[in-house]
């Protein structure tokens, strides 16, 4: 187990290195000039050239790469071209809203979807099952921004229950934090509820046909205990996998929700950085996302050991 953990952690190093090189090269191949963007609309070519030199972009690409690599190895992700701030500081400002949104979304999704999926499997073919599958199709089909605007219109504008936009840091109080996050989280969770509920239903349905379920029922166990203790527990591996993938996708995929609800998170930062060709910020954020993906995958793999004692590394 510990050897596995050590191997996996070591394996993250080449993964991150490959990502770093690819991102660096792809950005240099992308059309668009950060200097021209920074200079503003009325700047002329001379001024742009001076800014480009100031940013070090007039140097050969291999030289730029070596400088960046050297800085990165010493823990310095560089300074944003656009904001003139350390990339680590920028990420530090933006990580809390995104993590908060992702955590609340996944909590809502798991707490809703898993019971719904289990119930649908239990009542396979019945009205509840069909209704849940209908909801799942809808959840996958309705674009996030459409759902967001509908919820804002009803919950915020008509009922006046929750704010339309913005984010409050958790340090400002749990109440304002939750008040600003609940609507975005519900919006974002719908697709994950649909996804997790479907996987849960399929997985539990498979286990419900197993001999040990029949045995458990024959022993006279209560149906709830059969469903939770035996069916769900044995169906947990695929569910954990999909939840893990969901978390990883959430971290990098919340940009639409962040835009509609004006949440200053990592998604918004990434889009702004891409639009501004802010190379150091893009590189920093993508490295962070890669690290998240690797770690989440590792955690999912480790969770298998707990969820299924037969799995050993």
């Amino acid at each position, binding site marked *: 187990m510990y050897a596995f953990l050590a191997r996996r952690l070591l394996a993250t190093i080449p993964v991150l290195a490959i990502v770093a090189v690819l991102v660096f090269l792809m950005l240099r191949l992308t059309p668009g000039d950060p200097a021209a963007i920074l200079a503003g609309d*009325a700047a*002329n*070519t001379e001024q742009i050239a001076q800014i480009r030199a*100031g940013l070090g972009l007039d140097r050969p690409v291999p030289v730029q790469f070596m400088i960046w690599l050297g800085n990165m190895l010493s823990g310095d992700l560089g300074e944003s071209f656009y904001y*003139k701030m350390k990339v680590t500081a920028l990420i530090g400002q933006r990580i809390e809203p995104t993590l908060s949104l992702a955590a609340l979304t996944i909590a809502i999704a798991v707490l809703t979807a898993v019971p719904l999926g289990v119930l649908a499997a239990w009542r396979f073919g019945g009205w509840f099952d069909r209704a849940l599958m209908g909801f799942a199709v809808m959840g996958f089909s309705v674009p996030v921004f459409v759902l967001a605007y509908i919820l804002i219109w009803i919950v915020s504008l008509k009922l006046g*229950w929750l704010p339309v936009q913005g984010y*409050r840091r958790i340090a400002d109080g749990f109440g304002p934090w939750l008040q600003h996050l609940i609507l975005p989280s519900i919006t974002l969770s719908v697709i994950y509820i649909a996804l997790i509920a479907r996987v849960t239903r399929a997985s539990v349905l498979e286990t419900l046909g197993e001999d040990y379920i029949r045995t458990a029922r024959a022993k006279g166990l209560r149906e709830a205990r059969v469903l939770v203790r035996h069916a769900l527990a044995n169906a947990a591996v695929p569910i954990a996998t999909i939840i893990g993938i969901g978390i990883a996708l959430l971290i990098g995929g919340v940009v639409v929700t962040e*835009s509609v609800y*004006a949440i200053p998170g990592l998604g918004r930062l990434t889009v702004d950085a891409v639009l501004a060709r802010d190379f150091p910020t893009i590189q920093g954020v993508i490295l962070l996302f890669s690290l998240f993906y690797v770690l989440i995958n590792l955690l999912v793999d480790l969770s298998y050991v707990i969820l299924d004692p037969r799995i050993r590394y």
Partner: protein
Amino acid sequence: MNIARKFAVIAAVTASAAAISGLSFNSAAQDDAKVLRIVPHSNLAILDPIWTTAYMSRNHGYMIYDTPFGTDEKNQIKPQMVDTWSVSPDNRLWTFKLRPGLEFHDGKPVTGEDVVASIARWGKRDAMGSALMTFVERMDAPAPDTFRIFLREQCGFVLEALGKPSSNALFIMPKRIADTDAFKQIEEYIGSGPYIFKRDEFKPGDKAVYLKNTKYVPRKEAPSGTAGGKRVYVDRVEWNLALRDGQAQVNALQKGEVDIIEALPFDHYETVKKDPSLQIPKYSTVNLQYMARFNHLHKPFDNVKVRRAVLAAFSQEPFLRAQVGVKELYNVCPSMFTCGTPYGSPAGSDIQSKSNMKKAQELLKASGYDGTPVVVMKPTDLAAIQKLPDVAAQLLRQAGFKVDLQAMDWQTLVGRRAKKDPDDKGGWDMFLTAWQGHDIWNPIANAAMDTRGEQSGWFGWAKDDKLVELRNQFMRETDDAKKKRLADAIQTRAFEIGTHVPLGEYSQPMAARKNISGFFITNGNLYWNLKKN
């Protein structure tokens, strides 16, 4: 589930929602009546308004810095930090005395030396500033409240340059900051303006905060444009930099979470107009102008006859109708200088204003156009100008051009338009953009009329020695009537050679809640004199 249990569930859900909605806004509750919440037109990234011409940086500059002169709502230059000034009989020595009570946010008085250093830095970056500096022999500050500009020869736009309202406006900084290399960004943001920048609360992409400068001494005159008394009636101004979706902005305004939307998307104009809790205040008499710019370096627009065919083809109405749509917000303007400003005139515009597609086709036929495709760059992510290239492409096709309409994001366009390569090496032939009126309102400020060619000109690199000479004459002329005649001659020449195509003007509406008062004609986005009732 029986009725009682259903009722209990509904009651529980309702109670939870009510409980959440009732949670207190700890941070938002602070003196709401004294906090002005504004959604600016874009993100604020660069805090040095001399280093970039970005409008957001300029607006940030107006919050925290003051200017020696301002431009009032009638486009007249008026003193702002300056109290009195005099000019020598030969028009070569300008002496300015600062008004008393000017103080930087760090408590130090504003001196002539600060102004001289600020002019020197600005003169290296701004187009008008650079032009002015070609006349300047030296500057000095003979007394703490005085600064002088010694000119080599007389110059006709000293005050226009010192009081220019748009990018780059001459913001006065402490000497130690203004001494920063003009090609490096400053790192301290200390001005003497009506607001103090709250650096520790600045989160790029999230919010920028400004506090009332309680020591600021406003002028006695009423506010007007960038001139007049800058009185502040709120304690704090917050720019919401995260709220960028147009629909979300309007939602927030309707809900009262923000007070002002600086640039209301045209699509939402009617919605806001009909909402009794909202207003569309009049804040501008100078419109914005759309423009099509040629690349003069390569075929086909290196041929003046081809450019004139485009001038004939591009009647303004289709562009305005497609892009703005709301008739009361746009106007046809047969001038390269902003209509309604001193040099706005139809001089020389017949080729465009009295032309039609048949004429354009004839001109193109006579031009020897060989079918070279015209690369028109279309920004897909900039709603403010997104539809213009489609109209341009259609009109060009009707005139007989082959068109290669290339979609890209605005930042790619911005990078690509700086390239001088031909089309087959990633170059371009035409892009379309919009200018705030004060950036193109005279022959010096109007970048598209700088025809010095590849070396110093604006993207497109138009070259015409006659126009350069006319601009030089304009710079030296001090008589207003003669300046007007020269401006007409410059515009006539610009239409003759087709530097660019003006595509009409529009007014960018602002939206605010009804409880905000004190709006005045700013011709920009200035946030003093506003009260929140």
